[in-house]
């Protein structure tokens, strides 16, 4: 129902759904791309902390995933 795609004209990732579009900033897009059904929360945090050479992302990622879940952008298994 929701489609995540890169928009060349806007130079950003967007989520598309019936009659709407959400423009994503880079960190939101990075988190959503990790939600591929194969990783759990701990793995997503770990992967992103490694990718961006940082720590302490758990709270930010958890808060964003709650928003994403509430909006139906991701589904919980």
């Amino acid at each position, binding site marked *: 129902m929701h*489609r995540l795609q890169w928009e*060349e*004209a806007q130079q950003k990732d967007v989520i598309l759904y*019936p*009659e*709407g*579009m959400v423009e994503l900033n880079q960190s939101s897009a990075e988190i959503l791309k990790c939600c591929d059904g194969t990783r759990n929360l701990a793995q997503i945090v770990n992967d992103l902390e490694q990718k961006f050479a940082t720590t302490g992302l758990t709270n930010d990622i958890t808060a964003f995933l709650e928003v994403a879940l509430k909006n139906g952008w991701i589904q919980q298994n």
Partner: protein
Amino acid sequence: MAGSNKTNPTTALRTGITPPRWLLAELTYACPLQCPYCSNPIDYAKYQSELDTEDWKRVLTQARKMGAVQLGFSGGEPLTRKDLPELVKHARDLGYYSNLITSGYGLTEEKIVQLKEAGLDHIQVSIQASSQELNDHIAGTASFQHKKEVAHLVKKHGYPMVLCVVIHRENIHQMPEILAMAEELGADYLELANTQYYGWAHANRDLLLPTKEQFEQAEQIAQAFKEKVAGKMKIYYVVPDFYEDRPKACMNGWGTTFLTIAPDGVALPCHSARELPGLDCPNVKDYSIEQIWNESKAFNFFRGFDWMKEPCSSCDEKEKDFGGCRCQAYLLSGDMYAADPVCSKSPNHPVIQEAIDSAKATALADNEKPLIFRNSKNSRLLS
């Protein structure tokens, strides 16, 4: 939709012009239904020619390159176009998120599967009322049972199902039943579109405009339902602007976001703009979408704020609502530069109350005049 002010890196845009995001492709004015509030122009019957498949593909390609991403295949009834699957496939290849806006009439399971394979993202089915009798009366065609079957098939084949019900005086009392029907059909999105009074709806306004009490009651019921189904079904509520005291931010601002292409190829900043005088709306057979969006007289006509008169030009809300709707200003005051009469600051605002009173008087009269149904015969009679 959140607009973007970023400069488009792939296509040259004139300073201050944002690229199109939404493309409404009105493939045809042909339609088996005769809804008396149809958004097609009253004089649609005189526009007989239709763009061919290659024209539409070129339009889709050019608009996509500029940044259009949401695409509505509309009409009339878009299913009457034989090349619909081919156009859907082209749109998917280009990366559009495409929506089929249909009455459901003529939609079979085979076609639903075929369109899915072509890459259609969702289907919006319109239903005119919650009962067969009223649906078939308003639609001017026996279609209720088939529409419900179509809604089930849309769900069955994994599309998000958007149910659209246009609300007016004839069906507003059915609000509880309409909501129950949406739930029963498993709608993911429900669009409750209070009639916007242009074109056919303007001609039938005395018979369609509900009273303020009816609106408020229906809105309350819809609001309670929205809370009940939160997380399961999303409700789009198109506000009845005759009962607001500020106008809608029509089209998110003229020539900022929306691009409509009419069946004969005329490009419009909104689907009603054809009714405005002197715009010289360009045709996609003569110009590219980029030329039309950036350079045409029509698309620049009401861009920005320089065209405004008082009370809009000095209004501190002008960047919020852009002076409201140009077509409504023209229809109700005869002046397309005037403030939308819906606005309580407009000197023409009393015409709104007059319209409400006139509709109420008609409702109370013993011998109601009949609805004017949208068909070619009436189109020719009225234009």
